[in-house]
């Protein structure tokens, strides 16, 4: 039987399984679902925001962090991943028009 010693006991849980803390899924570590992780090449990334739009889990972070690439092009934002939230579905890599995101096996 799986260990559930840290989880609440039956009488500590809300009847009907209602969730009283909204947005609590953001606090749940889902990284153990992942078989592959997305890795971004900041040089190739053109900041088009498609990965941010398509990510079903809010695992793509849009950070106010300027980035200057090798050709001297300056971007005001930088996209990174929140690996606690990323389930490794690969949608970001699929949608990336410039192939800046690659899915890398977790085992490696």
């Amino acid at each position: 039987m799986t260990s559930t010693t840290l989880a609440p006991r039956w009488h500590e849980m809300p009847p009907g399984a209602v969730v009283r803390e909204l947005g609590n899924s953001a606090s749940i570590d889902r990284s153990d679902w992942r078989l592959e992780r997305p890795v971004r090449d900041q040089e190739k990334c053109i900041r088009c925001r498609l990965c941010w739009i398509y990510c079903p889990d809010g695992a793509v972070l849009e950070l106010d962090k300027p980035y200057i690439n090798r050709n001297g092009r300056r971007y005001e934002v930088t996209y990174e991943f929140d690996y606690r939230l990323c389930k490794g579905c690969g949608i970001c890599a699929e949608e990336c028009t410039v192939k800046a995101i690659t899915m890398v096996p977790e085992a490696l």
Partner: protein
Amino acid sequence: MTLASTRVKVATANEAAAEAVKDVDVDVVAIYPITPQTTVVEKIAEFVANGDLDAELIYVESEHSAMSALIGASACGARAFTSTSSQGLIYMHEVLHIASGMRLPLVMCVAMRALSAPISIWNDHSDLMSVRDSGWVIYVASSAQEVYDTTVMAYRLAEDPEVLLPVMVAYDGFIASHTAEPFEPAGRERALELSPKRRTWSRLDPDSPITMGTITSPEYYYEFKYQQVVAMEKALEKARELERAAQRVLGRSYGLIETYKIEDADVALLVMGSYWDNARLAVDEARRRGTRAGALRLRLYRPFPLEELERALRGVSVLGVVDRAISYGARPSGPIALEIAASIGRRLDLSLVSIVAGLGQRTVTVEDLTELAVSLENARGARDAHLVTRFYGVRGL
């Protein structure tokens, strides 16, 4: 009840159910017709059209939608109601579990009817028996009066903050649903005194948002199911108190089981629903023929009133359980007989006889029940009697 009272009406169990819905001031009713339940919701629509009840009627496209609509309504805090029968109940089976799992205090009347195939619009208990494990409290009423009273009582039980379970009030299709008899509605004031509108359950509220109907992982699901087990135990306790409250407010109560001449009985017949009157007449007739018979009626089926049943059966040597449904391949094949065999068959010094009768509303007369009661004498001392089910009335048997 005195017939001289001006409050007395002549009505079917279906009309009595609708009258109760009106008197407890239900807010939302999902309407979908299925025989023999249809006149319940027709009558409610009439009450709403005439301004006797201020409720939202939702004309849904199936029973599955009816229950889904009520789950939504109840999740918003509404007092909600629907009614169904047979295939309709089976069609909403999936959603029944969602209502109970979400702990929504819905009330639904079930005018019991046989299941297809072959199609039968007539009465038996196959539909109810198929949903007994859906986490609903289940009452089986035996008269229009009892249907009215129980529907009113059901809201108080369902909405009890320590219970929060949906409740079914079942009664026999046609035999009760379409047979007019006198009954006395308590009226809105007394109905609401017994079942005041209280918002005791978690509900959707824009000012204090919550999420309902969530997914759970294996680490959480089992605990919620165990909560339902505890709620059922609580419901049993509360159902006993509810009988006392009903006596106080409505001037009537029934008990979780009813008995007739059981105190000195050697043999006893257990029935549910409308067979109760005939069973009592059969007891009198069997006694005239020299068999010390008694009768019992299960009024509350879920949670199962084991203690009441055990107390009543002390001293009885043979119990015949008349089921109006079949658990195919089970031994015994009557669902209630099976349950009694499992729960008390070995604890009391009792021979249990499983009888299936009246399927698809095959007529079972007082004479039939008398014959069954008298024949129980043959099973005295037979410890394995319950392993065989008597399919009473099948031609060629």
